């Protein structure tokens, strides 16, 4: 993208991304030629039903998976041409992940889960500051089993942003949570996007959440079925589903 347009620079550029899985004897087309761009500081929702290919897309953007064909660029780095070690470095430096099922290490406390990441980052936040961003400083010494689902997800967010990633990728962050808890978690994500300017992509099948985003990209059957921009972003507190 050009610097003289109103758009900020593109962080991700994906072109013609296709992913085919071999599941036993069945070939599954998870993605069928997806092309998109995600911009600096942007909050994007990838909306789609179960099986639309959105998780696969997120995994490819995050360097967890490689497409069968097509190219993906992160800034100047061509992820699709990167080695396994380069992808590891990319994830280590630039990406924060939030998973549907939190994937916290159960044997580490909230603070230690965050520190697990700050230890390998070059310019991280203080772990307690990261927990403070998700309003969980006072529960820092609790183990995951001692935290509610929403709290666990907020720890996961603190863990994801502690390294000051350029991008935050969230895979159904509220999928396992009730509405009230989900809202608290979404507020945390929005605050990160706003306060740290982290480019944020949230995957969801929940159309209500899409109202929070700058931009909504809809996926169905492995293809982009629509892109719309929200002129107004609805606050998480006002969402209903």
């Amino acid at each position, binding site marked *: 993208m050009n610097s003289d347009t109103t758009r900020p620079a593109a962080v991700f550029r994906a072109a013609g991304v296709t992913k085919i899985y071999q599941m036993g004897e069945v070939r599954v087309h998870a993605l069928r030629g997806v092309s998109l761009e995600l911009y600096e500081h942007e909050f994007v929702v990838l909306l789609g039903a179960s099986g639309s290919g959105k998780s696969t897309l997120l995994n490819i953007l995050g360097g967890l998976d490689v497409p069968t064909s097509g190219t993906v660029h992160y800034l100047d780095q061509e992820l699709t041409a990167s080695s396994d070690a380069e992808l590891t470095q990319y994830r280590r430096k630039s990406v924060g992940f939030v998973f549907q099922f939190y994937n916290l290490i159960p044997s*580490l406390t909230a603070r230690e889960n965050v520190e*697990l990441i700050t230890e390998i980052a070059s310019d991280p936040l203080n772990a307690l500051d990261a927990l403070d961003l998700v309003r969980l400083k006072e529960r820092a010494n609790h183990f995951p089993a001692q935290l509610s689902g929403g709290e666990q997800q907020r720890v996961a967010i603190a863990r994801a942003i502690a390294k000051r990633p350029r991008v935050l990728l969230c895979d159904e962050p509220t999928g396992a949570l009730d509405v009230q808890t989900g809202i608290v978690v979404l507020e945390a994500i929005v605050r990160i996007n706003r306060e740290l300017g982290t480019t944020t992509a949230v995957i969801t099948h929940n159309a209500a959440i899409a109202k929070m985003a700058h931009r909504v990209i809809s996926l169905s059957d492995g293809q982009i079925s629509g892109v719309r921009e929200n002129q107004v972003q609805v606050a998480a507190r006002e969402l209903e589903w």
Partner: protein
Amino acid sequence: MKKLDRKLLRDLARMKGQAVAIILVISAGVATFVMSMCAYASLASSQRTFYRDFRFADVFSSAKRCPDAILPRIEELSGVAAVESRLVYDAPLKVPEMTEPATARLISVPEFGESALNKVYISRGRMLEPLRTGEVVVSEVFADAHGFKSGDQVQAILNGRLQTLTIVGIALSPEYVIQVQPGSIVPDNKRFGVFWMSQRDLEAAFDMTGAFNSVSLKLSFGANVEQVIDELDRLLKPYGSIGAFARDEQISHQYLSEELAQLRNMAWMAPAIFLSVAAFLLNIVVARVISQQREQIAALKAFGYSNFEVGLHYLNMALVISLLGTILGTLLGFWMAANITQMYQRFYKFPLLEFQVDRLAVVSAFLLTTGSAVLGAWWSVRSAIQLPPAEAMRPEPPPSYQLTLLERLLPAGLLSAEFRMVVRNIARKPFKASLSVLGIAMAVAVMILGNFTLDAVSYMMDFQFRQAQRQDLTVSFIEPATSSVVYEVAHLPGVLDSETMRTVATRIHYQNRARRVGIMGLDSEPRLYRLLDRRERPVQIPAVGVMLNTKLAELLGVNLGDEVIVEVLEDKRPTVSVEVTAIIEEYAGVNAYMNKQHLHALLQESNVASGAFLKVDSNRIATVFNELETRPGVGSVAIKEAVIRSFRETVAENILVMRSFIMAFAAVIAIGVVYNSARISLSEQSRDLATMRVIGFTKQEVSTILLGEIALLTMAAIPLGWGIGYLLAAAMSSGLDTENYRIPLVVSRTTFALGAAVVIVATVCSGWIVQRRIHDLDLVAVLKTRE
């Protein structure tokens, strides 16, 4: 501490039962290894120092009477560095409180100065003083067995004359580190003692002024031992030499070398067994942890932890366990080695025998355990490394099951659903199941190995002392006795039966090999001293030819029907060619036998006897013994029961110490394997089991599925373990096949049963512990857990 390391420690703490079980298996292997190596180092260095500082000779020979004039010619032999001549006699001792016979080996020491070779170390009291009469220095084990101290007196019959000897010192000698009487298989410290006396005293008592009957040589570096022996024999032949021999035929040295060889054997055998079991356990435990932590692995990788870091994290789990096992095992090994060294101190007498830490052993143990842990864990860790992060995000696909062969063969209705689940579980991971079976089988095998020595020794004792030898007393005459002496002995009141024998020192040659051995001439159908074949059947003594025991036949490479050269080393010294007409089974010594009449003919002599075997009324053994002692011409009398008793005391004690260690280790393996297998089955199946509970199965039914698998594996392991145990016992039996004794391959039913019992008990205990966890299964959580 790094957070990943903290996670490691907390994960380990959670699985502490399993970790401890593996740590114990590793420490058992390390302990045995470190123990053997340290005991080896202690014994070997004490031996080296003692031999060097007290100038243990390289070649030994004895003769009837050699003039001192021959000494310069011995010194001139090429390769000879030092020569020590002396007088050595065995004499009956009178020890007041003993009814049983004791023998003193009297060894002369120079009147002035000290011995050039085989020097004496005075541990208490003092050395003999010049020009004093009737003083002796006594070997420590004999003095301790009788509570003798300096100033005590003993009476010995020297050349037929009773003499009173005063003990002035207690001593050790490199020649008698372990004090075994020739012809005996174990030390008997009460009945055999070494006495050092002044040369002047012994010369006077045995009328040997200006002569000697024993000579020891120290060889120079690089000397040809065989050549020195040949030349020494040639020089001493006219003086009644019965053949020189090198250290490897010296009894004390032989025993010490055999003990050292055994320690070496144990040092590699134990780690081989225990560390392979530990490697297997680490493999299955780490594999299970990795499969449970798929999502954690996914998260770590998603956040930029590299494959190497993730792999190292799980490898560290194995390494921490193996390090703890090494530390515990090393300490345990030190403790065991200290114990063993203490036991050695009672049999092997050195000026200094101290427990020594073999640093190299500790380093080797560390490398061995680390190597085996890495090897064991690597196959599992590799799966964590190779797991693509995107795939790790998704839950593990359901395991694929198949109909087993058993189910295809049997009619559908015959097998219960529970049994099908058990069988399919085993069949799904055949490799893991086989290794579990092998692991449990090793516990059975180690147990058999631990008990087998006792079985074998009991069998050997029964074979040698009950089936073969049926006499109560064995009488040796000083000089070959005529039939009238024999008649007298045979008709002492209380003697029920008697038999005479003739023994003669010989060297038997076959091709380029030769062996010094006494040939014993026996009646053609002996009733008391019988020779048996492998199946315990009495062997009739052929009219002509020589009979060898299996060990001697093996040493010479002789087969039945071969012609050997018998070189008699006494009197007329004939050398004849004789056919080997029988090979007999014996578990002690290297021996040869002939028909007595044939031997007489060979020696061109009349019907004389070197000794007699007596069967005595059990109430009158003491009377007969006392009567025999007073008879002139009677050299020594051995009571068989006394020999058996001392054998039991020494050998049984030695074996019992080792056996208790081994049994404890077998239990450790059994529990380690069974408990870990059960825990892993529970962890793999807990969802299924909880689901079954939800749909109405009882706790008992659910337990059946879980424990059925372990029970089946244990049942399969027992016969396999019996087989492996038998093979290990065979390996040990051939490893202990020495000239002094052989351990027959005999494993009793009790030993087999004990082997099975230890794993059954381990299975029941592990089953009980794991089964309690079924009660704790969280039924609700199962329903909530995501797919």
